[in-house]
């Protein structure tokens, strides 16, 4: 690397950075620290603790990780378990798997089917949350829902999806909702591969699935890692399932983001809510660090 002369002197450079730094400080760093502080108090919306919140140390965190009723519905362990299932089911398997499958199915192909599938997937991705939630409630409703109308027309029984399979419902919903991102990322990654890669594999005698496993997957590895981490973070933090099941019935589809919302803004226990938020931040941070270190290792291996 050659040493390049900086375009601006240090003080002028800092001056240009200042507005952005102020914004980051006011709207990101400060609220985070504020949340961290609240999580160490017993602040609530009403009552005595609202006026004079007391410092309670790690009591809020201890309550979260109270293993006596940890996995009981409505408690943090249950929400964490739901979140893990939700992330694995809808992000890792659902979105990434479906996205890769679609991108691979239409690799180096054109035509009406590709346009149709891509358009539908992208539509599902860009429609506003509220509209999408309403569509899915209407689709899955027991008595008036489209899905049950189809099933009963086929002679199968009606299922009350949102009551009987709430977690599965939001997993399928979120898969449908987000597959487009992975699909677009993977199909642009595939487009960068020289056509001769697959052709050489075919001539070498590799069956399509062997070529996919040995050539395609390793070639787009860094894209896959990027995709997995991004959608894991997004799915872990998404709040849209609340609009469909509201976390219910009886907390069966309550993921961590909904749990936080319930504790902080329905029970108005700001201290405990903030503690959950801090735990969420730490989980996100851990995921992001794994992501960054993996990408750095990838970059070094090349």
């Amino acid at each position, binding site marked *: 690397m050659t040493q390049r002369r900086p375009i601006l002197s240090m003080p002028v450079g800092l001056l240009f950075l200042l507005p952005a730094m102020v914004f980051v400080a006011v709207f990101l760093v400060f609220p985070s620290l504020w949340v961290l502080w609240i999580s160490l108090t017993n602040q609530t919306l009403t009552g005595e603790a609202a006026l004079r919140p007391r410092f309670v140390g790690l009591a809020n965190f201890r309550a979260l990780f109270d293993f006596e009723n940890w996995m009981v519905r409505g408690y943090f362990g249950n929400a964490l378990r739901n979140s893990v299932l939700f992330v694995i089911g809808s992000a890792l398997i659902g979105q990434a798997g479906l996205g890769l499958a679609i991108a691979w199915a239409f690799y180096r192909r054109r035509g009406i089917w590709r346009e149709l599938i891509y358009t539908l997937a992208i539509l599902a991705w860009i429609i506003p949350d509220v509209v999408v939630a309403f569509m899915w409630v209407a689709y899955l409703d027991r008595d008036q829902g489209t899905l049950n109308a189809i099933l009963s027309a086929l002679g199968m029984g009606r299922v009350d999806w949102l009551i009987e399979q709430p977690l599965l419902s939001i997993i399928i919903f979120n898969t449908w909702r987000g597959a487009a991102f992975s699909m677009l990322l993977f199909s642009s990654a595939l487009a960068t591969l*020289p056509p*001769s*890669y697959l*052709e*050489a*594999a*075919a*001539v*070498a*005698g*590799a*069956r399509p699935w*062997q070529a996919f496993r*040995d*050539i395609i997957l*390793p*070639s787009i*590895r860094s894209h896959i890692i990027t995709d997995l981490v991004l959608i894991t973070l997004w799915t872990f933090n998404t709040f849209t399932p609340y609009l469909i099941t509201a976390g219910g019935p009886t907390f069966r589809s309550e993921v961590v983001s909904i749990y936080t919302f319930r504790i902080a803004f329905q029970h108005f226990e700001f201290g405990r809510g903030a503690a959950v938020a801090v735990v969420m931040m730490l989980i996100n941070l851990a995921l992001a660090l794994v992501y960054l270190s993996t990408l750095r290792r990838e970059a070094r291996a*090349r």
Partner: protein
Amino acid sequence: MARIRLEGVTKVFGAVVAVDDLTLTIEDGEFFALLGPSGCGKTTTLRMVAGLERPTRGRIFIGERDVTDLPPQARDIAMVFQDYALYPHMTIMENIGYPLKVRRYARSEIHRRVREVAEVLQIADLLDRRPGQLSGGQQQRAAVARALVYPPQAFLFDEPLSNLDAKLRLEARSFLKHLQKSLGITTIYVTHDQAEAMALADRIGVMDRGRLLQVGSPIEIYRRPRNTFVATFIGSPPMNLLRCRFQQAEAVLVLGDGQALALGERAEALRRAFRDGEPLWLGIRPEHLALAEGPGPTHLAARVYAVEPLGVETLVTVQVDAERIALRLSVDEPPVLREQVWVRVPMERALFFREGGELAL
């Protein structure tokens, strides 16, 4: 090892006929070069043999087997691509061993065979590296090694030397020829470089605009090109073509500027082939032309346009009327620029093409 036969093979892309009714047999063990300018359909032909493109019409046979409807995996061929298509995430060992890996060979057997091929290709010390750490010439050898590791019925090469610099290319060329001769595997080699085709092939097929114009040994094609396209595509510099008119009574050819060349002993043959006054192309290779001291019945007055000393010989371009003619001379004192010279045209060496381009004599 096998003979490859193409029968009436046609490939149409939309409105473009890339390969037009091509029939060709490549003998067992033969080194066959498909030669032509870019877009002539030679690569498409190769890709159809490989199974990467499906012919619109026609059949392809490898050995006695009709492979037209078989996928590349089932054709038992090996191909070296122009960009080598080595996988950056695999070591050279893994790259070369890939054809064995997909056939589920044992690890130890793969290592043994890869090492063996790598010895032959002199890249045994590079097996732990990745393609990105190899030079162009080494990558090319690794790609050849991958093609060799599982002995195929036929080798297909798609311009494998075009990404190498001039010096490496010569080296790789003799290496490939030696290798092919010692293995005796039927080989189709696609190139746009006539020198490469001449140097490597037992036979050459010259293609243009989807059609196979001529098939023959390098010498045949060099000595008797079937038409003016082949004549001007082969040779460096290519064959000189002079537009002239046959005058039967005087037994001469008259050039555009009125100069006449006596036909001598060939007059009789031309009289049978051409009408009086018919326009034609006189074709003559640069190495057959010589400078003369003064005027003569087969001498042309010309002016020197450029002189390029090449060491062994000197390339002299002269201008006759509006046309330029190349001469390869091995003289110690070449003419100088703009000098008036006489060029002797040895009629016994000349070829005569019809106005439309096909060879008549």
